[in-house]
């Protein structure tokens, strides 16, 4: 009967969904780069390395980055913001992207210009760096160059990295209350050297009260805030303006 299929009475959304699923979002017209982007969305690091190597035989590294890796990562960010993806997926994809980047840069013979540098570290005496691992992955995914100092980093090493790299932002992670005392020391040294860099501190024991009690300190409630904060710093927001926005 005609009525059943008349528009307005019924829509077979399942058929639409099926159709939509069979066709992954088109990010590149080149089949190989499209495949690369799809593999990145699935976070397959080894496959990415193979595909990038394959692509580099015929393509320019910058093209592989601009038309494969970056659009793929953008898809991952979109899926995360829509709630379809969670941090573990984002981190896998971010790691895969960095592996692909490394191959491209090797072929290029130089590193690719990123948005800006961010120095990250886990406090001296602390080894609990899950927060920092998340921050690194999200910043990489958002196109920043992460100067990853790792865990158990002495105050002077952090300060020296800031002096050397002149980052737009520096982050510190601490789980233990005994180790977070390094943060105000770092802030004080940065001040002495007139390096007015926003210093985002977060992690298990670190409270908003504590971080906002010293200059440059901005409290990071969740690791997932890091890219947004870095964008603010990139736009030229100072530590006071950033604290006003993200804290309190």
């Amino acid at each position, binding site marked *: *009967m*005609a*009525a*059943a299929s*008349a*528009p*307005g*009475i*019924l*829509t*077979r*959304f399942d058929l*639409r*969904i099926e159709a939509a699923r069979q066709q992954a979002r088109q990010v590149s017209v080149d089949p190989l780069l499209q495949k690369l982007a799809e593999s990145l969305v699935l976070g397959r690091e080894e496959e990415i390395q193979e595909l990038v190597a394959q692509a580099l035989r015929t393509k320019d590294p910058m093209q592989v980055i601009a038309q494969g890796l970056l659009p793929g990562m953008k898809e991952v960010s979109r899926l995360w913001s*829509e709630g379809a993806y969670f941090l573990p997926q984002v981190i896998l994809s971010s790691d895969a992207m960095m592996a692909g980047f490394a191959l491209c840069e090797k072929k290029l013979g130089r590193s690719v210009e990123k948005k800006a540098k961010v120095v990250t570290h886990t406090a001296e005496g602390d080894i609990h760096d899950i927060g920092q691992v998340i921050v690194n992955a999200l910043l990489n995914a958002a196109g920043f160059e992460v100067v990853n100092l790792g865990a158990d980093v002495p105050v002077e090493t952090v300060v020296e990295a800031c002096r050397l790299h002149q980052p737009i932002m520096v982050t510190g992670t601490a789980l233990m209350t005994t180790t977070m005392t390094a943060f105000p020391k770092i802030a004080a040294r940065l001040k002495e050297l007139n390096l007015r860099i926003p210093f985002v501190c977060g992690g298990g024991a670190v409270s908003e009260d504590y971080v906002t009690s010293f200059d440059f300190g901005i409290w990071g409630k969740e690791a997932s805030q890091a890219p947004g904060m870095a964008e603010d710093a990139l736009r030229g927001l100072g530590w006071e303006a950033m604290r006003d926005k993200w804290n309190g």
Partner: protein
Amino acid sequence: MKLTGTMAYRSSEEMVFGKALKPVETRGGLRIGGGMVIPELVPHPRPGSEMSLKTLLREFERANQDALERCVAVGHPQVELENEHVFQMTHNPSWGMEVASQTARQLQEFREKYGLQASYRATIADVRRPEMVDLRTSDRAREVLESFEACAPFADIVSIESLGGKELFDHSLIRNDLTGMLFAQAVLGGRDMEWLWRQIVRIAGKHGCIAGGDTDCSQANTAMFMAGGYLSKDVPQTLAALCRAIAASRTLVAYECGATGPGKDCAYENPIVKAITGVPISTEGKTAACAHMSLCGNVMAAVCDLWSNEAVEYHRMFGGTTPAVFVEMLGYDVAAMNAAVALGSQKQYQACLIASDRYRGPHGFMLCPDSAWAIGKAITDNNGSFYSRARAAALKCGELLQSDPKLEFTAFERQSLQGYLLELEGLPSTEEDFIDLCLGKYGKVKGFRPASYGL
């Protein structure tokens, strides 16, 4: 203001569900009154959720999400969501705005993800309590208008259930005083709506939003609710029916000010309004039993364009949460009507809806399309004033009720009706005289401020 003097429809035969002479199209892409009936779901937040903006947003997000997902799950192609503001959402206009913008985002997501056609109606709460504040100059009046400004950028449609005349109506209803009710609804309510709706239409137009319509819910539905069913004895069913006819005169004012419909779901007077104006209307019946009982559960669908559930509080049921369950039911009601349209059987289907309620009670009878059209005709033929057309509507309604012997009455109902009609016939012929009479009679009623109505 020039009052309507013509009928949009030449006869009730031309009126059918899903189709209006003046369809409207929302920014979300719904064509209302364009040939298909569309379900209109109204979820209501649980008490306690209005504690903070955060919990309220969460409540609406959840309710909307459940309803939209259910539409996709069972294949309902179109849906309109309506939120009737709780007090806090209008009292703090930014709350209403946050809910509206969140809802707009949700609908956008479902449009993009599934191609579900969906729109949003924000119904501002009339926080002006006429017995407490001045309807035109108080802070509460300002809040109402600010809320329209705040929601119109996000909502597809804005509406209100205005309260003009409510203070005197309540006083009159408990005394079964039809003169007072007529004065409250037609004269006071009409004047308040004229003041209010000119501004709503202007605000909506500025933001590209549709000025939907109003309802005499606060008065006519109060009477209908108190008249109840066959077991209630507080207010005669016949009085509630006369009150409904009067309400049409009042609700009409919104469209005379420039509103385009769709009318509000709880305006049971909407079939009369549609007959007069040709604007699309929302109605409710059996699927609104979650909110209140009625004696017109099917007939209300006879000429509807949106089909609503009035309001259902958010709860879990075996079949899912209430928004999901009710949107599923509304959608199936609507699918049957639309299938009737597709098969060319809409008049037969409409006849079934009408026949099942025509003699259930005065309300069902007077809201059948033929009665509704006849009452509308009385309104447009007597367009000298709010008063004259409302009185004519009530007299016509009474005449119709007495004219069909198949509509049966208890002795009490019959005697009451006769008494009301005598009362109406004895009233002055002009609005000026009627106002003088009423100001003398009700001027001292506690909480009644003639200045609120420019009197």
